[in-house]
């Protein structure tokens, strides 16, 4: 018998001789019965048409849709990101405060949304919310500015020294390092310094030097002198006078053998440096030399 003769027998590949031999074996009847019985076996029902329909419904017919959807989804994703960015930056820009600043020897004028005016002295900066202006009239100030406030709701000027609140008036705020002065020219101004409120009627000043409230002289005229190109001082330590000089002329002031805490009363012109220097040196009995943008003040009795 050849190899795998049972398989050959099933597929009718046995030779006549082999078949005869197989038929005579005792196992033949069993195999014959097995062949017959197994030919009547059946697998579970399978509906090819139904399976094909399911395949088409669930997978194939959906497939092209998925393909066409994909680029659109991608587009949507990109569009969503762009929309968020645009909306985000729009809101961000809108909430950004308007900022105006001046450099040394520079001045600027700002008209607020309600026609209030702000005049910025040298080396100063204001910021305010243009969008929210109608709800909250607030200006953050660093440096010095003169305000002409239009009548209306409460108007506040915030500085790191305190808050100035008004209803429609004209006043000047100078907010420098160690120096804070509010001068009211018209109406009534309320100054809150160290949580203490002070009312300033027209023609009065509120002055804080190095954290101490100092009684200040009465201002002249209806606007701060710097508006007329003049810096005026009344019993102000010399160092603040020099600081103002530096700001107005964009120069560097150094001193030698001078007590800069000495009080100075007087004024200097903001347009002519030579005149200004003389205006300071004469009453303070000091001398000065100019070297480019550098000015040296020294005690009158020493040197030369």
């Amino acid at each position, binding site marked *: 018998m050849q190899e795998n003769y049972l*398989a050959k027998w*099933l597929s009718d590949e046995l030779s006549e001789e082999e078949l005869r031999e197989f038929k005579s074996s005792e196992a033949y009847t*069993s195999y014959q019965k097995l062949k017959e019985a197994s030919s009547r*076996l*059946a*697998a*579970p029902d399978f509906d090819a048409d139904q*399976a094909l329909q399911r395949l088409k419904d669930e997978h194939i017919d959906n497939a092209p849709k998925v393909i066409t959807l994909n680029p659109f989804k991608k587009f949507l994703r990109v569009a969503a990101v762009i929309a968020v960015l645009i909306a985000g930056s729009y809101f961000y820009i809108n909430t950004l405060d308007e900022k105006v600043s001046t450099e040394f020897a520079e001045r600027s004028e700002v008209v607020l949304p309600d026609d209030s005016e702000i005049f910025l002295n040298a080396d100063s900066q204001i910021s305010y919310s243009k969008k929210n202006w109608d709800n909250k009239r607030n200006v953050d100030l660093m440096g010095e500015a003169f305000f002409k406030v239009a009548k209306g709701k409460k108007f506040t000027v915030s500085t790191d020294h305190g808050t100035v609140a008004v209803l429609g008036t004209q006043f000047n705020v100078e907010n420098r390092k160690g120096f804070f002065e509010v001068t009211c020219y018209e109406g009534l101004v309320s100054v809150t310094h160290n949580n203490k409120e002070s009312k300033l009627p027209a023609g009065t000043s509120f002055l804080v030097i190095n954290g101490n409230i100092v009684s200040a002289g009465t201002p002249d005229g209806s606007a701060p002198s710097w508006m007329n190109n003049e810096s005026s001082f009344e019993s102000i330590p010399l160092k603040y006078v020099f600081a103002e000089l530096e700001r107005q002329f964009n120069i560097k002031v150094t001193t030698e053998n001078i007590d800069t805490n000495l009080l100075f009363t007087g004024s200097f012109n903001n347009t002519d440096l030579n005149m200004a220097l003389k205006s300071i040196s004469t009453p303070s009995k000091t001398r000065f030399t100019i070297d480019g943008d550098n000015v040296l003040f020294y005690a009158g009795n020493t040197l030369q």
Partner: protein
Amino acid sequence: MSNVCEDHVFSKVFKTHSKTVFNYIFYKFGNEEKAHDAVQEAFVKLWQNCAKVSPEKAKSYVYTIANNLYLNVLKAEKVRLKHADSLVKDRTHESPEFLMEEKEYKKKLDDAINALPDNQRTTFLLNRIDGKKYAEIAEMEGVSVKAIEKRMHLALKSLREQIDGI
């Protein structure tokens, strides 16, 4: 040149081979539901790769996919087959004893088939039920015709031994 991507070609391939794929997986694992899934899976893959698979290769492609799908994943269950009644209606044999004997034999055959190793059972049933030639089965399984003949021979041998209680 016909392409599997064309709907009518694909449908033809499906109608020709889906039942065999179904039976093939069913004989292997005895799980009807998984056999249905295998058909879907195999032909979806064929559709997705229709440009790469020629109609001639489609047949072995779907068998390979179906086979790999559950390889080492699915544990074989009992294969439940249907037994058609004998075509030869022999009145004289329809005695209660004969019917009893027949019923017993069917049960023995079922048990013996289930006792076969997966590959022998699959080969045996593809031949007996689906009438697949050894060469076709060899192609589906990706082995030589001789290997299929061997499986068939061994399957018959163990079935007979099991049934006759040798």
